[in-house]
């Protein structure tokens, strides 16, 4: 027990070291976003942009006729649209699975849950061909609709809806509420907290998604923010001031939302652990 005093010190030291490892890149993104490319790429690296300016952002905003704003707007539309539709479809299907009886339910539910394991990258080729056949290449429909049917969303919401007491629904039925009314006015309000967690989970994942937009879009104006940034890299080099500024601009909205609703974000992002 003679090391009793030392252990807490080592513990905080380890935790601090890891914190610095996680923080340094994020901090360098802030710093570099305000520094000129040639300064970023020269010795010594600095921890404060004392030679900084807003030039990177100016350059970013006028680049390709303001393409950056378009990408930002595209990302908001695509992630927002995808999340809203995914929530609606999941909630509706989950209500039927959790609270209603119908033939085929015992077969359909496990079949849907079973596909959770399948990563989307395994079916990129057929997905691309189907989307092409529908004429959705390079459109918002093509960006948004292919993954609104989320098996994970149904799995999660069904779990939550099973907890709603049947007596609550029975009471509404006796009061003469229709089935759709019960869903909209009784079930949905109860599961709003779970829906918002699912929304955070889905939105943050889609906000960073690169693979599908890379495949389905072909014009500069249809790019999402991550894809736009990825393509900026091809124009200049791997590291440049404007790319840093663009990366920071894509990260800031998520960071601000996180700082305002830290606990919801943590719970929402960790939903992935339930996915298993």
């Amino acid at each position, binding site marked *: 027990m003679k090391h009793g005093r030392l*252990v807490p010190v080592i513990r905080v030291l380890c935790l601090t070291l890891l914190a610095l490892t996680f923080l340094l890149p994020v901090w360098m993104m802030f710093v570099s976003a305000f520094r000129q490319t040639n300064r970023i790429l020269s010795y010594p690296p600095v921890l404060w942009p004392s030679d900084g300016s807003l030039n990177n952002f100016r350059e970013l905003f006028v680049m390709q006729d303001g393409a950056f704003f378009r990408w930002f707007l595209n990302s908001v539309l695509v992630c927002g649209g995808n999340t809203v539709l995914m929530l609606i*479809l999941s909630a509706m299907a989950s209500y039927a699975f959790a609270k209603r009886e119908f033939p085929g339910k015992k077969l359909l539910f496990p079949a849907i849950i079973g*596909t959770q394991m*399948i990563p989307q990258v395994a079916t990129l080729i057929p997905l*691309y061909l*189907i989307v092409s056949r529908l004429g959705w290449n390079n459109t918002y429909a093509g960006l948004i609709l292919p993954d609104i049917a989320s098996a994970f969303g149904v799995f999660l919401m069904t779990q939550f809806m099973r907890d709603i007491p049947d007596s609550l629904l029975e009471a509404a039925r006796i009061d003469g509420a229709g089935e759709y009314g019960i869903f909209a006015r009784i079930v949905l309000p109860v599961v709003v907290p779970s829906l918002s967690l699912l929304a955070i989970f889905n939105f943050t994942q889609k906000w*960073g998604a690169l693979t599908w937009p890379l495949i389905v879009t072909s014009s500069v104006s249809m790019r999402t923010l991550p894809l736009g940034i990825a393509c900026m890299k091809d124009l200049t080099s791997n590291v440049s001031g404007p790319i840093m500024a663009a990366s920071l601009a894509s990260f800031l909205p*998520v960071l601000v939302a996180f700082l305002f609703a830290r606990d919801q974000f943590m719970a929402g992002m960790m939903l992935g652990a339930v996915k298993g």
Partner: protein
Amino acid sequence: MQKKVRENLISFSFILPFFLFFAVFVLVPLGYVLYLSLHKGTLLNSRLVFSGLRNYLSVTESKDFRNSFLNSLIYILCIVPVGQVISLFFARLLRRKTRLNGVFETIYFLPMLVSMVAASVVIAYILSQKGPVNYLLQQVGLPAINWLGNEVTARISLMILEMWKGGSFFIFVYMAAIRALPEDCCEAARIDGANRWQEFFHVMLPMLHNTVVLSVIMSTIWQFQIFESVYMLTGGGPLKKTETVVYSIYQYSFQYSKIGMGSAASVMFLMMIALVSLLEMLMMREKKEGGIRA
């Protein structure tokens, strides 16, 4: 009877919107990829020629795919154990819910909010020729490293990026599991004279069995899917030495337009993931029968 039909119709109307999209974008693609893997064709030309299992043969004989399957295996074998041990260690350190630990949790959470694209941009800078890491190396008298220039350090760079971006996820998984353990279990061990290590390995770890299995499998499946980081950080180079399975599938399908081979590789990739998932279920059940609670 009529009422029953009506009730069923209502149920189906709740499922239908979901099922429509599920069928078109999940079920059909699954069958379709299997079908495509047995045919020769290109992305733009819709005419497919049946070729039996030849695509599978081409994939197994292809230098590119052999190379990328090997690389993926290397990533899994390095990232999974290292990541899990680190995560467990730090989760154990964060066991108590204090204000200071809350600050650490907030910081550890940040990389998960950064998109892979932004993370790649930043890590590319951190590891660049005159970036902070090389600067630190030189300050302590070591030579600067051209991180993305040779195959070993390029792979390490990629693993650093993957672990920086996604590694903290498992800290939180383990932290939640450890915090859910009953307080008295470890106290008993402490009274019996166990030290911290004994307590951790002999009391805590066995109780975390299912969490460990889940995390290892989940991490394995994730590392198997590495694509965006390769696309962003190394572009597969130098000399294809950092390419992964998904990167090769992407290249063959969407750049070389060989959708037959791309599909065959996708099916093989899917079967391996199914196999790993099956392993998980087997290992989980085993423990449940053993009567140890998760």
